[in-house]
């Protein structure tokens, strides 16, 4: 039984040109006690999904359909009051840029205390002790609690954000591009903190990222998103080594490997479809070197494939052959 299971979730944004379907009939299972990577390019709906789970969408966004079953309860069916009770206590959030996500005019001690007291029901002294403990947990000196956010470096702010997220011992943490704005060394250190705490506290975590390497380093499972949908999902080892979807295959060849100079990079030509009027068939068809008329006409269903591996592609059966062809830049150049 998953800790979180999302079924047919659709999130739309009202725009002048009609509703934009940022997340479209999306299914996803997040098991307890593991890190699930949610990987995709900008505009694929991965961040929207994170915010929809927290129940805090931008003003123009709304959940148009679907179910979010969390800890056995369908939380979309519950009252706003019940959902608010859940927030931060059961599911917490780590933002991309901790600079903007922390109140600039309040000390970190006040921001920690606010959550611990108002949401955690702690007393003032208990809250101070707990804040110090949390700072230690993420590798920050508790003496720095009296600092303002702008006095911290990017890595320290991100650690403070993690401490805040863990304040009320949630069972699920959603991290939205938590290391994107950081330098490689700090990035690695923050990923290590996340991995270590996840294991120690047996958290479930959704790690939203655009970087397949971050997924490979930190995640147990991965879901690849494209144009508002999950196109492939499974254990990281499976998806990375035996990708079934041509988009995933493209991504694994799209950026260089520091230890391999012979590798030829493969650009995926074209750009994702408009989510105002998504194409009828497979959304990747226009950029896919293997697309045939059926792909353009009919959306491929999500199918289980092998051990715990899901894919939405009509050609998944030919995946081993396609993987060989996908490694050749000429295959993709034909699309342009």
């Amino acid at each position, binding site marked *: 039984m998953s800790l979180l299971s999302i079924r047919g979730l659709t999130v739309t944004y009202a725009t002048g040109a009609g509703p934009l379907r940022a997340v479209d009939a999306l299914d996803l299972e997040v098991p307890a006690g593991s890190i699930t990577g949610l990987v995709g390019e900008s505009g694929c709906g991965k961040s929207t999904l994170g*915010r929809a789970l927290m129940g*805090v969408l931008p003003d123009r966004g709304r959940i148009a359909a679907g179910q979010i079953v969390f800890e056995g309860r369908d939380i979309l069916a519950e009252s706003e009051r019940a959902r608010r009770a859940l*927030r931060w206590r059961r599911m917490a959030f780590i933002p991309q840029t901790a600079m903007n996500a*922390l109140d600039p*005019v309040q000390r970190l001690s006040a921001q920690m205390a*606010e959550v611990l007291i108002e*949401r955690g029901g702690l007393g003032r002294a208990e809250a101070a002790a707990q804040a110090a403990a949390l700072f230690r947990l993420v590798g920050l000196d508790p003496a720095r609690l009296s600092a*303002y956010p*702008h006095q911290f470096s990017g890595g320290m702010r991100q650690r403070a954000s993690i401490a805040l997220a863990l304040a009320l011992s949630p069972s699920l943490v959603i991290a939205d591009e938590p290391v994107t704005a950081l330098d490689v060394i700090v990035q690695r250190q923050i990923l290590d903190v996340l991995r270590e705490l996840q294991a120690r506290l047996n958290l479930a975590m959704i790690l939203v990222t655009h970087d397949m390497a971050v997924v490979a380093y930190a995640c147990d499972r991965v879901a690849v998103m494209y144009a508002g949908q999950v196109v492939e999902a499974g254990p990281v080892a499976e998806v990375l080594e035996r990708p079934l979807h041509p988009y995933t295959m493209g991504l694994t060849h799209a950026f260089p490997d520091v230890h391999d100079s012979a590798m030829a990079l493969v650009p995926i030509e074209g750009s994702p479809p408009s989510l105002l009027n998504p194409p009828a068939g497979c959304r990747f068809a226009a950029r896919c070197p293997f697309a045939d008329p059926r792909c353009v006409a009919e959306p491929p269903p999500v199918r289980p494939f092998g051990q715990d591996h899901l894919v939405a592609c009509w050609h998944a059966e030919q995946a081993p052959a396609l993987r060989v062809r996908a490694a050749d830049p000429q295959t993709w150049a034909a699309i342009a």
Partner: protein
Amino acid sequence: MLRLAAGRLGHLVLVLWVVTTLTFVLFRLMPGDPTLNFLSPSFSQETRAALLKGFGLDRSLWEQYLIYMGNLLRGELGQSFLQGKSVAALLGEALPNTVILTLVSLTAAYAFGIVAGAFLAFRRGGVVEALAIPTTLATRAAPEFWLGMLLLAGLAFQAGWFPTGGALSPGKEMGSFSESLISADYWWHLALPALTLMLFLQGLPLLLMRATMLEVLNDEFIVMARMKGLSRWSIVMRHAARNALLPVVTAFALGLGASIGGNVVVETVFAWPGIGRLLVQAVQSADYPLAQGAFLLIAAVLVVMNTVADLAYAALDPRVSVGAKR
């Protein structure tokens, strides 16, 4: 922070010096004999001689300037033509009235503006906003003396609820300003001019508060506060309002400086015996020493309050006052 304060204070002194010098030049470059402009023909021969010597009006411009600056530093502003009093004494009588009028109206305006602005930001859209915004803009667009005229005609002349001008009813005399302060008559006279100014002044804090609140409410840390499941009250008061108040506090300090001089027309309409009215009377009756003194005082207050506004903003925003530790 200390460095910043020292820098701003140094700047303040510099600006004050330039403004006083400019005033000196302005009053000496006017047409006619500048000497005559400072000596009323009505003065006695001895007074004339004393003033000529005291202000160095018979010497070169350069020497006059040095004497002028020296006098300023000692608070010596010269002799008014008409009232036979020293300029400093006249200003001293008028200043408290102006300060009271300004403080009362400005405080009321900001208290109202902040609350109403926060409310409008909170309740966005709808009929309330559609009516409130244009109305507020209209109060800022109306000439303040015209607002005063409307109130005067309606509430004083027609309804008779308020006096038609001055600071005290005819025949009443107050020994000192503090005596005035505790008399109901004084406050009754203050009501209409203060209301006029308040009407005119409340628009700025209201619109500023609303705009900054809306901006802050869109910031990512507010989204985070919602994700944390914090109550709406916590979000609005602890996070949004605190951040949004920064520019409003600055505007208050700037407004204080500006309205001491900006009260000119309202004081004139209500015959309120403040600095502004004194200035107008002095200019109308070519009483140059008094005009110069009033102008210098108004400018000094403005310059000082500009600096206070700068410092207040810096003090309230930790991003400025608490330097990054790097």
